[in-house]
């Protein structure tokens, strides 16, 4: 293409993006169409990818297409395989895309669509995608080694150990919050529970088929699995309508929590081919397929956003989660804007498949832009709902009461007009008994998606089908993450215990396996149970902790990246990683501090504990506790949460110190000191 035409083309994209953003940001009082938001996002992504990402890749990282990647240097036909960049993109995107970018934006919608949109766009361009690309680059230059390994070799053993403990703690809290989202979505919903339970026999069937009948034929078996899953969505409706069967699948949150804990344990100790792997195949195809369908449906339907651009809850008084816009919006939307967990994936299997360093921008930066687009779609799905319905679904019972009348009254008093009939009829339309306090984000997203899908393919009862299809989509891949994550946590615990008692490291040892798995499950199970019995719905407590943890992991990865830039003698470009690092440190430390010490018991753990201690001293019992013993348990939970937040902050602070020390040492040496493999620079 002629350079002038090329420039004009991007000029037009930039102008169109600016106009769309202007409409999104400035129009008030009348509903904004979602397409403005979608178009603005796409324009921002295109410009960022073409200019900023290229600048970072070419100048700061010094991408060298001639340099041999691990897959070229040591191909083994198994792990290290030079692979077409579109194929690697698919692999990488499937590995980073999880529930995070779907749930976070839904919860953030309580402040309106504008704050969330702006943070996703700015965050992904300057922080999230930069992190993913830089870590992918650094790992590619180190034989595809993991983040923990790389930190150990560039920052020292102590830093590596600290990072290992931090990653494990973050993993535990991630598993707990994801499990809680599923529990909240399935509680009191026989249709949802039946459909999700059916994924177990379907997966077992697929596992046996793949193992004994037709090994390796994943295509045909996945197709079979998908057909069976769709059938079980339909069958779930029949079960829920049957007075004999429905009660069997109508479960309390506590029962579901214990079922999940037991299931998570079993699923992660069983051979992976039997249950875990086939579920993983199903959930991955369902996830990618549904995300694609949602994108197409949003383009066809072009829905209006009913949620205002900005709500009064930016002051921190919101019912969905407590805390003001800064810092809590930036940790509530974690994964869609920047996600520390991606640094683990970017230093996992992906770097071993990269055929040329020239592909790193497309795969690292590009896949994260795609994830941000998923987050934008989730935000759209939440904001097409009537705000009154949104708040009815996401506010805890403690604030809106247990009946449609009390909920409608409470929510209308906040300025979002809604009638009891609207709440009751929405529940009826989606095939549920109630929509009140279905917190956790997943049900809200499912209603939003169902509304959008229903405007493409509608009919009698279709809304209920779409709602439960969306619940299945979310629950299936969340549960797969929980099972597989429990295994990951088990290996981490084995490694940690192995440093004390070496035999613990052996993967084949059944004792080590069972003990480490039990410890991992007990860890997330504890937080899950605490979340389930929490009067404010649990999500209110756990999601901020998870967000803080995830963003702190990102900060740790970016500190490491910054040190590497210094060691590469590319100090001129250090601002590229230092800028997001600084922002994430400010956000997470402010949020962590407030979660511990804030005077408002809805925000601060210690203030919450104090409320209960005072009541305990006066001999009173505060809801939801029904006895003084339960009061004591709530107080203990508060202290555990406060300790966990302290641990996170301590880990990051320690890594920051290690990073500063390593950077100062590297600055004094006049030649590059990074430990790369291949054609090392300066060697």
């Amino acid at each position, binding site marked *: 293409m002629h350079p002038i035409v090329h420039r004009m083309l991007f000029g037009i994209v930039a102008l169109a993006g600016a106009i769309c953003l202007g409409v999104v940001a400035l129009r008030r009082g009348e509903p904004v169409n979602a397409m403005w938001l979608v178009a603005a996002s796409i324009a921002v992504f295109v410009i960022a990818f073409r200019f900023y990402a290229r600048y970072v890749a070419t100048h700061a990282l010094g991408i060298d297409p001639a340099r041999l990647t691990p897959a070229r240097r040591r*191909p*083994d*036909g*198994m*792990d290290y395989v*030079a*692979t*077409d*960049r*579109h*194929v*690697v993109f*698919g*692999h990488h995107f*499937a*590995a980073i*895309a*999880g*529930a995070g970018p779907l749930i976070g934006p839904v919860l953030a919608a309580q402040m309106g669509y504008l704050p969330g949109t702006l943070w996703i766009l700015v965050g992904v361009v300057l922080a999230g995608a930069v992190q993913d690309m830089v870590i992918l680059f650094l790992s590619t230059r180190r034989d595809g080694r*993991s983040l923990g390994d790389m930190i150990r070799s560039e920052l020292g053993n102590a830093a590596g150990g600290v990072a290992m403990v931090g990653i494990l703690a973050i993993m535990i809290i*991630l598993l707990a919050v*994801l499990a809680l989202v599923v529990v909240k979505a399935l509680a009191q919903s026989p249709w949802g529970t039946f459909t999700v339970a059916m994924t177990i026999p379907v997966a077992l069937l697929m596992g046996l088929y*793949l*193992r004994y009948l037709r*090994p*390796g034929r*994943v*295509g045909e078996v996945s197709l079979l699995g998908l057909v069976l899953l769709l059938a079980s969505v339909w069958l779930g409706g029949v079960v829920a309508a049957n007075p004999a069967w429905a009660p069997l699948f109508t479960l309390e949150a506590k029962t579901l929590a214990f079922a999940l804990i037991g299931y998570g344990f079993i699923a992660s100790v069983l051979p*992976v*081919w039997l249950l875990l*792997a086939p579920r*993983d*195949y199903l959930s*991955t*195809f369902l996830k*990618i397929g549904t995300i694609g369908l949602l994108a197409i449906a949003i383009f066809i339907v072009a829905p209006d956003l009913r949620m205002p651009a900005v709500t009064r809850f930016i002051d921190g008084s919101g019912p969905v989660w407590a805390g003001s816009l800064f810092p809590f919006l930036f940790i509530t939307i*974690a*994964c869609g804007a920047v*996600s520390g*967990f*991606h640094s*683990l*994936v970017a230093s*996992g*299997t992906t770097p071993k*498949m990269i*055929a*040329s360093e*020239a592909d790193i921008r497309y795969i690292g930066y590009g896949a994260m832009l795609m994830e941000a687009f998923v987050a934008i779609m989730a935000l759209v799905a939440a904001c097409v709902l009537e705000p009154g319905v949104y708040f009815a679904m996401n506010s805890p019972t403690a604030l809106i009461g247990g009946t449609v009348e009390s909920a409608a009254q409470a929510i209308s008093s906040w300025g979002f007009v809604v009638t009891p009939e609207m709440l009751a009829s929405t529940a009826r339309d989606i095939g549920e008994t109630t929509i009140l306090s279905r917190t956790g984000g997943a049900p809200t997203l499912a209603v939003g998606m169902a509304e959008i899908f229903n405007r493409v393919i509608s009919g009698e009862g279709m809304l209920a089908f779409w709602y439960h299809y969306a619940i299945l989509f979310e629950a299936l891949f969340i549960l797969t*993450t929980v099972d*597989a*994550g429990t*295994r*990951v946590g088990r*290996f981490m615990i*084995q*490694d940690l215990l192995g440093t004390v008692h070496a035999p613990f490291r052996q*993967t084949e040892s059944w004792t080590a396996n069972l003990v480490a798995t039990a410890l991992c499950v007990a860890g997330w199970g504890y937080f899950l149970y605490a979340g389930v019995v929490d009067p404010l719905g649990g999500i209110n407590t756990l999601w901020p902790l*998870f967000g803080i943890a*995830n963003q702190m992991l990102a900060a740790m990865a970016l500190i490491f990246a910054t040190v590497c830039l210094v060691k590469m003698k590319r100090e001129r470009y250090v601002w590229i990683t230092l800028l997001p690092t600084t922002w994430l440190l400010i956000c997470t430390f402010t949020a962590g501090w407030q979660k511990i010490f804030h005077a408002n018991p809805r925000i601060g753990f210690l203030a919450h504990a104090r409320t209960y201690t005072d009541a305990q001293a006066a001999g009173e019992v505060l809801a939801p506790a029904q006895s003084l013993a339960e009061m004591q348990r709530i107080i203990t939970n508060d202290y555990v949460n406060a300790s966990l937040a302290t641990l996170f902050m301590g880990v990051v602070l320690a890594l920051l110190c290690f990073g500063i020390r390593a950077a100062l040492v590297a600055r004094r040496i006049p030649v590059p000191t990074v430990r790369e493999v291949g054609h090392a620079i300066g060697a």
Partner: protein
Amino acid sequence: MPSARDPLRRLSPTGGPWRRVVDVARALIGAPDYERYLAHQAAHHPGAVPLDRAAFFAARQAARFARGATRCC
């Protein structure tokens, strides 16, 4: 994109659109192509007996959930 920039064209001789879709679908779930593995073995280790399809698949599946593999939120 010009194919000169894409040295992998040579790696997938039957690189039609359907093949692309299948490759991406397999990559999504970390189940790589058995034929490509055979080609690699034939090219680099002509003496060795390659794994059969079932063993190759089982080995790849185990690796996806082995120590060091990570999951995302």
